[in-house]
């Protein structure tokens, strides 16, 4: 994304990167949203408003998705056996024991 000689990050490039990472995150990749935020931490003092918008919603997306995902994972793992045939139907692999 960045060529070593062209080290300068101007506004246009920043918006481009933020937008791309924001877009990619929608493919069920919440950690890309987190990367979006982490990537811009060294530049946090010189951020464009538009970039800030992308970063704000990336953070919301990351936290929201993670909550839903972790929550579902917890519920599934604890209750999978109690759900009987339904629990087996929604599983790709059923572990032994």
């Amino acid at each position, binding site marked *: 994304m960045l060529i070593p000689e062209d080290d300068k990050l101007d506004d246009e490039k920043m918006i481009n990167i933020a937008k791309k990472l924001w877009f990619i995150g929608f493919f069920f990749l919440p950690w890309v949203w987190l990367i979006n935020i982490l990537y811009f931490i060294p530049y946090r003092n010189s951020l464009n408003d538009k970039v800030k918008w992308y970063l704000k919603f990336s953070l919301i997306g990351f936290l929201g998705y993670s909550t839903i995902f972790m929550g579902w994972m917890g519920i599934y793992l604890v209750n999978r*056996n109690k759900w009987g045939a339904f629990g*087996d139907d929604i599983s790709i692999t059923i572990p*032994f*024991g």
Partner: protein
Amino acid sequence: MKIKNYFIIVFIIIVLSTDVISSQSSIEDKMYTSLNSYPCTRIMTLNGQIGCSSSHGGDSGILYLIDSDESYHNYFSYNQQKDIIVVFDSNYFNKTLVLEMYSKKKMNGALVLTDIGKTYPYSPEDQYPIKQFGLYPDSNLNWNPNGDGFTYMNFPFPMFALELKTSIIIRNLSTINRDGKYPAYGAELDSFMQGAINAETCLRRGFCEPVGGQSIWSSFSEVIDQSKPIILVMLPIDATAFFRDLATGTDQSGYALTVLLSMLNTLQGVDKTKWDKEVIFAMWNSERWGYVGSTNFVNDLLNFNCTSLDSNNQNSCSSPPMLDLTFEQIKFENIYAIIEFNQIGRPVNSGKKTPNKLDIYNLVFHPNGGAGANQLMDVFSQSTQSYENSTIQFQKTTQNELPPCSSMSFIKEINKKSAPNFIGTLVITDHDYQYNNPYFGDEQDNSGNINTTTSTLFDMVQVFSKSIDLLAGGNGTVKVDDLFIREINVCLTQSITCNWVTKLMSTFPYNPIPNFYSGVYGVSPVNHITPIETRFIFRMATYLTQHRTNATNCTSDNDCDTSSSICVNKVCLYSNTHYHNAISLAFSFDNSKSSWTIVNTSYPVFVESNWDYTTVRLFQVGSYANEIWFLVSGLIELLLSVGIIFYIKKYLSKRYKLL
């Protein structure tokens, strides 16, 4: 230059990798020793699970021997940072002690030694075995007072029994541990069971198979004459134990089976032309899991209806699947009498002696069904009295209820309409009320559990054979073959690697201990898993009741044309001996999912988990101080080598300007 370097590097890699591979396997062999062991496996029931399972990958710990009250009490205060594998002397392995230990302090696994047997009577079975599936589900009797129900409990840790020589070794090694010497000995127990939770769940997932097997019925008649009344002579052949590989069950089943097969051998030489009744000898399997074999047979006699025959074999049904339809010759309404032998190996000494000074033992009659049973009892009594030196005599029971027996499956269905000619049932046992078997359902029910001599065994075979001959219409002249009786007794109660097995079977038994646990039925209605003991009984019954031979130079059973013929010594033997499915009526096979399902929960539901392997491995453990020293010296070595490399690098760069 470059190619030469390339070859050098490849050569070094090959040398290193082969060296690593060979040293890897030999290091593992030096670290671990595999032990010959028998696992406690898992069986699922309708509502839960029984038995044991290890964690995935096994459970390990240091060996702790419990062979005295002192070591038992010290267990609770044993402050070892390592996990513990408890090594039990037989006398300390029962439900009370194990549960008390496990509730107060977790153990990682248990090994049970079999070199010294229990010195007290003990049964891990229930006090009234399979009561809910018998004739008296609300009975208050306790046929098995030594029973504590240990076999039907669930344990989340692995348990293994060790065979004799291994037990002695482990006892010695555990004593070394107790003396506090290092390196100590530890073991890894791996018996991970794939099935869990309950029968329905694991059947749905395909992680288990229904408990069952094959029953065997046999007749001397080439074809069952459907105009003659039928006398059923039967017994259960399967046995149970906490460690299912050690279920020899000599008094429980094996001794009676010896008698029955010897009766077949005796009656083989008797003139049967005057017989006016059909005699069918039936050996039911999986009876201990809810009278599965006998219930299945009765149900098929009454309700089986073939909707489409197999196009290749008219004696086989494709829907519903049934490999052998010969049982349809047996009509339920022709059943005239039922005689069952159930636990006859420990009769009580009557105190009297025969004219030639041998002890006389009491066998007990348990009649059922009214006045007709008296007729059966009279024949047996008269038979034994006709021999001056018979060491057995009969008494009638004082109990009103029948003991747990396979006849119950028949009695449930017998009434005036279904069997109009039926005169009664006679169950012959060695006990009046409570079992004389001190080790019912325990591994110790082996040949050492029989309290009579072989002359009593010969007398039983003679008296029973004569009685059956008389009941069938013969004149009662029988002659027993002592040698055969001795040989078959050894096969079924001491070691299955015996002459008859070598003669009749093409495979050699892996485990010499005769094991009559019924095992699993199979993976589908026609794909059976039949243990060697069941196959041996079938072949022996076929051999003894053969009515025709054909010296076709056969090499396997498939070369002989019917399903009930076997190839022995290049000769095809034909007999009216057949297998019959012994699987609980609770199960039905779903062809679309290719799995068993539970369709009727009023019948017994037992399924056995699948597993990949079970092993016990022995290894050595260093003391805590030793291990800390290893860690510290390793760290010192690391720092030292790093320091040396830095120094050399500095020195060489200064001195030779190389690096």
